[in-house]
């Protein structure tokens, strides 16, 4: 979610900060991060041995920490980092540390609107999640695969519910893992629980589970599907009707199942990263129709083009009519939209972005160590040391470019027609 309607969309460029000047003030500066609206650039800086701070547009946070890592802007523009003081860890938001401190924190996640911040927590070798500084009431002996609901109000993870000594394969095979939602464990244990998904309303959780060493299925709110498979990948919920969809493997081939039953009539060498269009009417997924050939399938029908190496970063347009993805062949990345490949290829391409009217596709691209953006297969004439993902204006007629070159971080608003002509 962007708050882009509140941003300054006047065409022009604004030099925000000269990071080269920062370099003269600190022992070192770490990777810069640009705020979603482009108005701020920030980096972790080292002041002296064991003294770190965050520099935002040239200004330091008020507090110095023993160590800082994982600096990230939340979608609402707040700046977060994992910080350590006196051997304890917590999250700092805009320089202010959460009141609660822990043995360790990691893996910061944000709700779509950025208002809820969740991290994994270790305290006295017990594990849980903490949301906005408040840890779960229950803790566990291990925790993996954290997930949060779209609004960030609910949290879940795979947790270990009984002790396990190393080498005790028999206890393990009885099943000592389950999912915990907001700290409360499901009633049933499984051999493994992976990759949870929340329903859009946050009320249900689905997860991959292994019932024994061989039988895989999906469990929804702790109840396994009636069918088992040779393998499964991560489930997702339908945006509206509560159906759970997951790739399932049987007889050496993959297909898509809904609530335990196959829904696609084709089988694939591989199938993963399934996704619904925003209107919930179409399902797309990354597939390998043949060994070593990768493409997107929409409603089970693969595109006619395929990549030899990989396909990723798929995204539906806002109006649900178009689909874009990044593919790689012969060591070069490119963008495919609705099964048509861009002519340009790159050393790297980031996730494509659709314009609000769904007509245009933009992406951050890299060639020979220089970064720029490409829109509808046209490459912007300027390149930079660093670029962040482009953002379309609410009307779709302008693009926000956040660029860094020779230490100079610049916020640019460029008319779309200047980029596409």
């Amino acid at each position, binding site marked *: 979610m962007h708050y882009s309607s509140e941003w300054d969309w006047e065409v022009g460029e604004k030099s925000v900060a000269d990071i080269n000047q920062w370099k003269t003030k600190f*022992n*070192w500066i*770490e*990777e810069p991060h640009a705020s979603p609206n482009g108005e701020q650039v920030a980096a972790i800086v*080292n002041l002296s*041995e064991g003294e770190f701070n965050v520099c935002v547009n040239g200004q330091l946070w008020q507090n110095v920490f023993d*160590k800082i*890592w*994982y600096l990230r802007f939340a979608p609402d523009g707040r700046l977060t980092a994992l910080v350590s003081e006196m051997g304890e860890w917590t999250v700092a938001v805009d320089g202010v540390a959460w009141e609660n401190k822990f*043995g*360790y924190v*990691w*893996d910061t996640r944000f709700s779509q609107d950025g208002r809820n911040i969740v991290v*994994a927590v*270790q305290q006295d070798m017990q*594990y849980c999640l903490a949301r906005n500084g408040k840890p779960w009431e229950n803790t566990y002996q*291990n*925790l*993996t695969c954290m997930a949060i609901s779209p609004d960030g109000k609910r949290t879940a993870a795979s947790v*270990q519910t009984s002790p396990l000594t*190393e*080498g*005790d*394969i*028999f206890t*393990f095979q009885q099943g000592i*893992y389950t999912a915990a939602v907001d700290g409360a464990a499901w009633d049933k244990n499984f*051999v*493994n629980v*992976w990759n949870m998904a929340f329903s859009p309303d946050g009320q249900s959780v689905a997860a991959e589970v*292994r019932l024994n*060493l*061989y039988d*895989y299925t999906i469990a929804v709110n702790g109840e396994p599907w009636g069918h088992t498979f*040779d*393998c499964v990948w991560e489930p997702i919920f339908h945006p509206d009707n509560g159906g759970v969809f997951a790739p399932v*493997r049987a*007889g*050496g081939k993959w297909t898509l199942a809904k609530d335990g039953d196959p829904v696609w009539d084709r089988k694939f*060498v*591989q199938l*993963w990263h399934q996704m619904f269009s925003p209107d919930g009417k179409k399902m797309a997924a990354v597939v*390998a129709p043949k*060994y*070593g050939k*990768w493409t997107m399938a929409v409603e089970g029908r693969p595109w006619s083009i395929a990549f*030899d*190496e*990989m396909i*990723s970063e798929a995204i539906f347009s806002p109006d649900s009519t178009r689909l874009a993805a990044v593919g*790689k062949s012969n*060591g070069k990345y490119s963008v495919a939209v609705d099964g048509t490949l861009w002519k340009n290829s790159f*050393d*790297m391409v*980031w996730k494509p972005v659709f314009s609000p009217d769904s007509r245009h596709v933009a992406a951050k691209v*890299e060639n020979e160590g220089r970064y720029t953006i490409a829109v509808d297969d046209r490459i912007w004439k300027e390149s930079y040391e660093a670029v962040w993902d482009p953002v379309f204006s609410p009307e779709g007629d302008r693009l926000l470019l956040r660029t860094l070159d020779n230490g100079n971080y610049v916020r640019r608003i460029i008319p779309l027609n200047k980029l596409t002509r």
Partner: protein
Amino acid sequence: MAEPAKKVEEKKVIDEGLEKGTDRLTPDRIEKVIKQVLEGESGARLKAYVDTCIHCGLCSEACHYYLSHDNDPRWSPVGKVKQTLWEMLKKKGRVSADFIRTTAEIASTECNLCKRCAMYCPFGIDIAYLMLIVRRICHRLGVTPLYIQDTAHSHSVTMNQMWVKGDEWPDTLQWQEEEAQAEIPTLRIPLEKEGADIMYSVIGPGPKFQAQLIYQAAVIMNIAGLDWTMPATPGWDNSDMAMFTGDNEIMGRIKRTHFETAARLKVKRIVMGECGHAFRSIQDVGNRWLGWRMPPIPIAHAIEFYYELLKEGKIRVAKKYAETVTFQDPCNVVRGAGLHEKARDVVNQICENFIEMHPNREHNYCCCAGGGVINCGPPYKLKRMKSNRIKAEQLFAVKSRGAKTLIAPCHNCHSGLEDINHHYELGMDIKFLGDILYEVMEKPES
């Protein structure tokens, strides 16, 4: 292939993973699983191998087990296939539970999947592949040695082989970064740096027991001035014991996590430490199970990486390592990937005196640790020692010619050869290439 003068009775190893697994078997289950794997999962390749083998026994001379056991045919590659897979085929899966127990032990602890025998077979039959099918059957029957099964369990939960938890990994990297800053004050181990050129990946024992290797790698990366990163999430471990237990589904899950982590970080390639089996898993077996013909993101084993750094002058040698060294060619990166000449180039650039052991390069004898054998744990250590007398003789010969240091650029080789070194009292000093490179490279004054 000569018969030995006398049969030597081996003491039966007690392994709860095998004993309890065997107790749960029924004839019907055995038959069903064998048929399921042989008919449902193994296609033309298995049939071609079975139909082509003329039982000539030429593979025998390739096998360190056979050579170390006085040419007893029971230890020959074809002998191991005869004792396991052929029986299953001949009896159409109607074999006993005790047979499965013996089969599991042979397949998991008496073959390192080193593929030396494939070079000696007139038809190039890949017996390692056949042994992996046997291991797959044993996995589906729940009869796998306990220690390696525990490792596969660890992979399934944590995506690493040593039960390293989510906090322990980044915490270890930060600890090593701090340690290394005592040597190079501005050194960093950049975590989660999206868009870096290189993702550096290691194996599970790295953070658990060998943190100094992460330290060394960080120093090398920093001095070479490379744009690199390490993930702070699961996906950092490139190792894969599930590949060796026959749990292909977990193998695929681990590899998917590894490659998708690299893809998420938008790196151009993955550089890995000195591990052989992990290279096999990423470059050959695991990626292909998932449908990738080749790794979706290129992989460089440490040998290739060091070769590049030295060739491009990114790392310079201040003073070569003085002790005379010899070099162990690991099966997965030499027979598997042809890195032997690049390895020699690196060794010659960083060491004063290098002498070959014989045989060498793709003909080198296996360490007897790889293929998951060392991961089957202490119950099989003595067998592993007895089964590689030929390696001890090979090392003793090169030591007699002056070699004091043995370079082993593979974790399994390294650990296995340490055991051989102690068991046979060879008195050699065993090092990784990175140990020596770190020691001899030009570093800034701290």
